[in-house]
């Protein structure tokens, strides 16, 4: 029978480093994705994800299962991401889909887009759609952005997200509605039933959006 995250963390507290490895394997990708979508920089996202795991490891002796492990972990991650965004707001970079980042040992694309489309044009459309979505999410106010990412991509429960963001469930639902409403407007070319995006989306000036 698979151990729960809380049980794994209690085992880490008891000195079992293998349990920490299991938590690392389970959550490193969701955490890196969440942080990447928050800060929009792969190198910073990786660094922050490592900091989250480091803080979890450091706090193992004081760990008390008062909440879900994911609530605790994503609260640490959210606080780190918000601090990072606030600290680096003035020099936040626009990362294009083609830009490469130095991962230490080898170079890899900033985003690993699955190769779903056989043609070059379809691939370009897919990349542009992804870039539009990423830009729209990143343009949201920080708390709305975190709420959408935790709701849509991490699929946390409402009470968990509310605890991560330190607000009431009612306030969270209003927050989520406003965030999705903004995205609905910003991504109208992708969501409107009357507009089909089978070409490279253009912005208001008529230029390609990406």
């Amino acid at each position, binding site marked *: 029978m698979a151990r729960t995250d809380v049980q794994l963390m209690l085992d880490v507290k008891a000195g079992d480093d293998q349990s920490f490895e299991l938590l*690392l394997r389970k959550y*490193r*990708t969701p955490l*890196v*994705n969440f942080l*990447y*979508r928050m800060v929009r920089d*792969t190198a910073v*996202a*990786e660094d922050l*994800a*490592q900091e989250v*795991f*480091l803080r979890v*490891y*450091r706090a193992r*002796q004081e760990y008390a299962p008062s909440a879900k492990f994911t609530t605790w972990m994503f609260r640490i991650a959210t606080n780190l991401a918000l601090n990072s965004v606030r600290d680096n707001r003035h020099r936040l970079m626009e990362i294009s889909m083609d830009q490469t980042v130095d*991962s*230490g*040992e*080898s170079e*890899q694309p*900033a*985003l*690993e*887009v*699955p190769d779903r489309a056989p043609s070059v044009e379809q691939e370009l459309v*897919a990349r542009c*759609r*992804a870039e539009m*979505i*990423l830009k729209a*999410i990143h343009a949201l106010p920080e708390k709305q952005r975190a709420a959408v990412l935790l*709701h*849509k*991509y991490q699929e946390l*429960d*409402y009470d968990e997200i509310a605890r991560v963001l330190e607000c009431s469930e*009612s306030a969270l*639902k*209003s927050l*989520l*509605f406003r965030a*999705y409403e903004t*995205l*609905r407007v910003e*991504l109208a070319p*992708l*969501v*409107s*039933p009357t507009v089909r995006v089978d070409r490279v989306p253009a912005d208001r000036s008529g230029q390609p959006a990406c």
Partner: protein
Amino acid sequence: MFGKEKSSVKQCAALERKLVEYLDGRARPADRHAVEEHLSGCASCRLRAEEFRALWTALDDLPEVSPSPAFDATLRTRIAAEPARRSFWDWLPSPRLAFAVTALVVMSAWLSSVPRVTTNPTVVSQASQASEVSPESDFGMIRDLPVLENFDVVSKFDALSELPVTQGRPTGEGVKESR
């Protein structure tokens, strides 16, 4: 008519708080029925709900990033570089030594707290009696001192014989000669 529109606007505003949880399937049955009832009679909210569904489908197109291959190794290195948290007792090599050090500290503290003069009342009274010495016994102690008692040593001291003899103040051999 105006009242009906006002009531519809209120219902639309109420829907906003329930729409997200309705669309993600987490709404309570009562809320779900209320939303469905409103959507069936409100074209603008129905369109918005459709666009929300389309938005969520579009958001799925966001590709995932993968951690770099060096992620785990880097993290392990950072964890290994963490200073180990050690308590006071961890610095001691063994429990026996820890016990010995503790015992030594306790003994030292106890010994330093013990008064040097006993506070037993009977002993104190005896000690005070012994300290009350009469002048006669004090004189006897001085008289018993061996050097002062040895009169021969003093009287045969050669240097004293060279002193001039003065009337009324006889000293040593000079006194005998003048006689």
